[in-house]
Structures are given as structure tokens and as C-alpha cells.
């Protein structure tokens, strides 16, 4: 194992030095507030490009021998290294990071070859190459990669875009949640999942909300899956009490320490995945896990340190979270890109780039990536930024987006995309919902729901 390997690149007559792989990756990262807050960002625009040049010349093989976060102290690194597939890596093993970018954008990189490559790439390789890519590169490469998952709907097929219906309510009031669910279903959202962020974290509330959705699903034969995004241990308690658990959710991050701050580890995720699989509730497939991620989560938990005590940049750590996700063949994975706040992603420009980086890296590593295109009121962003990123992600082939009534989440106090936004991006890019859900929208059961929705209070009893 190499220690404190130093990198350098000469621009004009200045030799730029980058001690350690974490430093090289951080300095090569396009500007964002979180890396500045961590004190690891490039000090000048030129230093950033010098780092990108040095990174472009780095052989991919190097990433297998020089760990950004130490193998000995971090189970995420052990997962990455121990599950690395040398055979899948073989086609690109002689390339540098810069050459990998060229290859990804070339016609050589067909959807089939990209899919086969995924287990051969580490998150650090994916993060590294993304730092050399412009937005159009991130879009054109990601658009070639299709990751299809199934439970009761099939999400991620070409020409399709799904939406998670997010019917949150400030006090978890079942009638209020049901009103938002009806609104979303009638507007064609919900084919990724109906996923509620609960205000409280109790197994009883979780179970009650799951029963509510399940009753509605069965009554109108709706091809959907549900999820209550409580802590994973809360969902498992609900599951053990007999609640109808479809997907099991957890927020994950890219270091063992950050995951510990979420109260999870790999063993717990495996236990949950096994428990979900055992219920056998899917009809067209058995992907049961749902993960959310976001750049900055490790830094916010002060869990962003890597080899030699060097800070690791937030985008590389985000890609490492995808290594955690892919170990469990999840149904859904999405970055919550603008939620964390301006100290990590300051404005619409930084949020836009991060959203496309996350989508690309996730797809490259074999994940069914969606995106919560969003912002908080203290970020320098507004609805125009949401529209732009939504459209770009649609072009990049994002599996799903969020559907929040009127884009205003009244529980989490942030703005995401709306049911209407999903209609917009589907129309402008000629995309359709998941096939099972599309058929339901055109059928008698949808028409019946529309009729009975004139008395919403009668639909609300589980």
C-alpha cells in the first residue's frame, strides 16, 4: 500500500504539488462551498486545472493500491476493495483517468459495455473522471447507461421517467397524507414509490401509514410500492409487527464514520435487505431497498477524513456512498442534491453540477439513479434552477424524480419538483411513466379512483 503519494503538475513555470490522493481529488473538484468550508478546495482557478491535469494522467490502476479512506479503519473501503471485479475492470485497466473520459464518451462505450464495466470501477475512479467532465459530458455518458429495477413497477426503462410521490404532512395526519396521495396519483405521479417522510419516528405510525397506502393500492389495483422513510430500525420494527412493508429506506453516506452518525452499518443494511426480500411482496421483481444520499453529509457529521487525516472532498465521498448502495441491489437511489444547504452547495450553479455528477457516478457504478431536484430557502436558487436541472436530468435519462404537491414540502420545509413538473419533463422529452403504471392510468381503476376522489374522506380508512 502506498503512503502519502505526492502528485504534481507544471503549468507555465509553476510546479503545483498535491500531497496525497485526497488532496489531488479535492483540488481537482469544480468549486463548491462544502470543500471550501472543509479547507480542502483549490486556492485558485489555475491550481484547480493543474490538479485536473495531474488527475487526468493518473492510471486507473493507482486507485486499487492507494486508498482515499484507509482500508483498515473503514468498512466502506473494505467493501469497495473486496468486491472489486478484476475481470470487469480489464477492458479499461490500462487507461488513465483522462483516457477513461475519452472512452466513456466514445462510440466504443456502448450501453452493454458500460453495464458490464460497472463492477470493475471503484467510486473513486468514477468521482475522478467526473471531475474532468463538463455538464454535457455527464449527460451524454449517463444517457447511455440504463439501470432497470422492479418491484410492482419497472423503473428505468428507455423512454420512461418515474416519480416518487412524496405526500408529507407536518403532523403525519393520515387524511392530509391521503389528500396529497390522491392529488399525485390523479396527476400521474407515484410510479417510483409512494414515499412518506414521517414527522415522528415510531413503528406504530410507520405501520399505520403503510396500511393506509396498502389498502388504497389494493382497492384500486394500483401498481405501486410504498415506503415510510423512518429510520431503518423503525421500519424493521414495523415489519416485525406485521406491517405491509414494500421498500425499506435508509440514508447512507460514504464513510463508516458518517454511516455510524446515521445509526447504521453494512450488517444492519444487509439484515434489512434480507428481511424485505423474505416478505416477497414484489410482483414483477424483488429490488426492495431505497437509499438517499447527498454531497456534504459526511462533512456535516465531521466524518470526512481519509488517509493521513486529509479531508476528502464531498463529491468523492458521495460516490463512495454508491458503493454501499450497490451492494444491496436497490430499487431506488437518489441524491437529495439541494437539501443540505448553501454551506455545501451554495447556489443553483453548484447544485446543478452536483446533481448531474451524482446521477452520472451512480449510473456508472450500476445504480438506478433518481434525483431529488431541490433547494432550501437560504440557498441562492429558485424555481428556474429547478426547471433547468430537471430538464438536464431528463435528457441524461434519470430514472425518477420527486413529486411534491406544488413543489412545496410542508413538512421538510424545502422546495422539490412537483407533480406538474413531472408532467412537464415527460411531455417535453417524450417520456412515459413506468409501463405498469401507464397501463393503470389508462384503465378503469384510474377512472374509478377519479370518481370516488370526489369524496376523499371515504378513501382514507385503512
Amino acid at each position, binding site marked *: 500500500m502506498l503512503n502519502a503519494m505526492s502528485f504534481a503538475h507544471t503549468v507555465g513555470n509553476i510546479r503545483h504539488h498535491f500531497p496525497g490522493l485526497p488532496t489531488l481529488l479535492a483540488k481537482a473538484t469544480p468549486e463548491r462551498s462544502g470543500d471550501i468550508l472543509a479547507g480542502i478546495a483549490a486556492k485558485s482557478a489555475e491550481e484547480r486545472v493543474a490538479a485536473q491535469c495531474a488527475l487526468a494522467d493518473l492510471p486507473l490502476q493507482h486507485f486499487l493500491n492507494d486508498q482515499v479512506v484507509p482500508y483498515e479503519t473503514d468498512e466502506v473501503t473494505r467493501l469497495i476493495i473486496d468486491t472489486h471485479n478484476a475481470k470487469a475492470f480489464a477492458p479499461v485497466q490500462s487507461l488513465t483517468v483522462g483516457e477513461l473520459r475519452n472512452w466513456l464518451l466514445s462510440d466504443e462505450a456502448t450501453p452493454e459495455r458500460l453495464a458490464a464495466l460497472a463492477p470493475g470501477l471503484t467510486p473513486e475512479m468514477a468521482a475522478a473522471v467526473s471531475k474532468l467532465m463538463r455538464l454535457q459530458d455527464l449527460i451524454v455518458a449517463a444517457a447511455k447507461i440504463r439501470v432497470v429495477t422492479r418491484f410492482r413497477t419497472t423503473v428505468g426503462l428507455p423512454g420512461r421517467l418515474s416519480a416518487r410521490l412524496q405526500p408529507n404532512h407536518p403532523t403525519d395526519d393520515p*387524511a*392530509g397524507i391521503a*389528500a396529497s396521495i390522491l392529488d399525485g396519483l390523479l396527476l400521474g405521479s407515484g410510479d417510483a414509490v409512494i414515499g412518506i417522510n414521517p414527522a415522528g419516528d415510531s413503528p406504530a405510525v410507520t405501520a399505520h401509514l403503510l396500511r393506509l397506502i396498502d389498502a388504497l393500492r389494493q382497492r384500486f389495483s394500483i401498481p405501486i410500492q410504498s415506503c415510510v422513510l423512518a429510520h431503518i430500525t423503525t421500519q424493521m420494527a414495523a415489519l416485525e409487527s406485521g406491517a405491509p412493508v414494500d421498500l425499506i429506506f435508509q440514508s447512507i453516506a460514504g464513510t463508516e464514520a458518517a454511516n455510524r452518525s446515521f445509526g447504521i452499518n453494512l450488517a444492519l443494511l444487509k439484515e434489512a435487505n434480507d428481511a424485505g426480500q423474505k416478505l416477497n411482496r414484489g410482483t414483477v421483481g424483488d429490488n426492495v431497498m431505497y437509499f438517499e444520499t447527498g454531497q456534504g453529509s459526511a462533512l456535516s457529521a465531521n466524518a470526512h477524513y481519509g488517509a493521513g487525516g486529509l479531508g476528502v472532498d464531498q463529491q468523492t465521498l458521495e460516490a463512495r456512498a454508491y458503493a454501499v448502495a450497490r451492494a444491496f441491489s436497490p430499487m431506488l437511489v437518489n441524491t437529495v442534491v439541494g437539501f443540505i444547504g448553501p454551506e455545501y452547495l*451554495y447556489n443553483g450553479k453548484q447544485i446543478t453540477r452536483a446533481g448531474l455528477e451524482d446521477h452520472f457516478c451512480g449510473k456508472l457504478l450500476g445504480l438506478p439513479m433518481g434525483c431529488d431536484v431541490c433547494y*432550501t*430557502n437560504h440557498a441562492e436558487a429558485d424555481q428556474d434552477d429547478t426547471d433547468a436541472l430537471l430538464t438536464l436530468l431528463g435528457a441524461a435519462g434519470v430514472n425518477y424524480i420527486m413529486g411534491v404537491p406544488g413543489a*412545496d414540502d410542508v413538512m421538510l420545509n424545502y422546495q422539490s419538483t412537483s407533480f406538474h413538473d413531472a408532467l412537464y419533463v415527460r411531455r417535453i422529452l417524450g417520456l412515459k411513466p413506468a409501463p405498469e403504471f401507464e397501463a393503470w392510468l389508462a384503465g378503469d381503476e384510474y377512472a374509478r379512483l377519479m370518481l370516488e376522489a370526489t369524496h376523499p374522506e371515504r378513501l382514507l380508512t385503512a
Partner: protein
Amino acid sequence: MSDLVHNGIAAKLQSLTPARVGLGRTGISLETRDVLEFQLAHARARDAVHARLDVAGLAAAIETTTCSTVLQLHSAAANRVQYLQRPDLGRQLNEASRKLLSAQSSGADLVLIVADGLSSFAIERHVPAVLNELLPRLATTSLAPICIVEQARVAIGDEIGQTLGAQLSIVFIGERPGLSSPDSLGAYITWQPRSGRTDAERVCISNIRTEGLSYTQAASQLERAITQARERRLTGVASHSIPASLPAGEEKL
């Protein structure tokens, strides 16, 4: 897909939730009225974040209504742009404020700190009224001067409380505005404030605003939290009787 508005469903859905359900459509797009309503809510939230706290006006209001001495302090974050990107600076005082504070006599039971946080509207609209309700309940408590701090985060109360040698601090702070709540006030109570305290060592009372927790309710919860902190000689996760409701929206990840 049908139009909910014309089917008469919209109003029923809206009666069940504060969420923006039952919005009409023109084609697949929102109608002008709904777009502008949203823009107004966002504009108010943005203004709440960026409007500078009227420190002089607030100090005068507090001095008049409470007859307390008021100190005007500033964090190490120079302005709002830096404040939003450098939370670490918002948790420390600048040099001038440190000097001003260290010249004060120390050893009071309680220091009340008013921090602009992410909503100056919350401070200006609610703090004088909450103090009016709270101070009469603290007749037997010795109070340090009330500190107003600009560009400040919750943890700045630790440095202030430590410098003043206060047994207990309460930081009133403007919470992150939601679209429907640009002026929500939070209050964090910390036993033996000193640098390095974590949020787990505080009690939080959230959502103080006209549509949320009333001034009387807030004052009574604060009084109870103060009493319990003194009895137990601690605040935070180890003390469970006060619901430590974190501000909504702090955690999605």
C-alpha cells in the same frame, strides 16, 4: 388526466392538508395565479433570510419593554454571504465583540441571547413579545445584559455564556424559513454554556410564531426548561421531560 379544479375535488383535498394540492392546470403547466402565489411565498422566505436585522430598533424595543441593558454584538462572519457559507464563523464572536463582552461583570444566573440566524423577521416580530411574557416569570433570576448578535448561529451562545460566566443561556434565533413560515422563532436552552457544547446538550423549543407556538406557550415551556435544567444541572438528550423537537426540515438525509 382530469382537471381536479373542475371536478370539484380540489377544494376537498385542500381542506385536509396545508400542502399545495388541487392546483389547476393549463395544458400541463400551472396557472398564473398559483405560480405567483408560490413566488410570493418564496420571495418572503428569501427576504427573511437576507433582510438585515434592525439591531438599533430591536435594542430600543427591548430596553423599553424590559428595562434591561442590551449589548450589541457581531459574529466573525462579516456579512450574509459569508455567514451562509461559513457556519464556523457564525459560531464565534468577532474581536470587537469579544472585547466588549470581556469588559462586562460576570456570574449571572441566566443570559438571554438574540441571534438573527436565518430569519431576521422572526426576531423582529416575536422576540420583544416573548421577552414580555418570559421576564416576569424570572423575577428571582439574576440576568446578564441581553445580547443581540448579528450573523450568528446557535452555538455563539456558548462563547457568550462562558465569557459572562452564566449558569444557563437561552439563544433566541430565526429558524430556516419555509415557504409558509418565513418568521418562525426557535429558542435553545443550554446548561453551563461553554465552547464545544453540541446540539445534543441543548433543549430546543421550536416554531414560535403566530400560526405556531404562542408567546405564552413559549414562555411557559421556557420557564419549565429553566427550572428542570437547574434541578438536573444539565440540558439535552440526557434530560427527557421537555420534548426536544428539532426544527422541522433539519434532517432529511
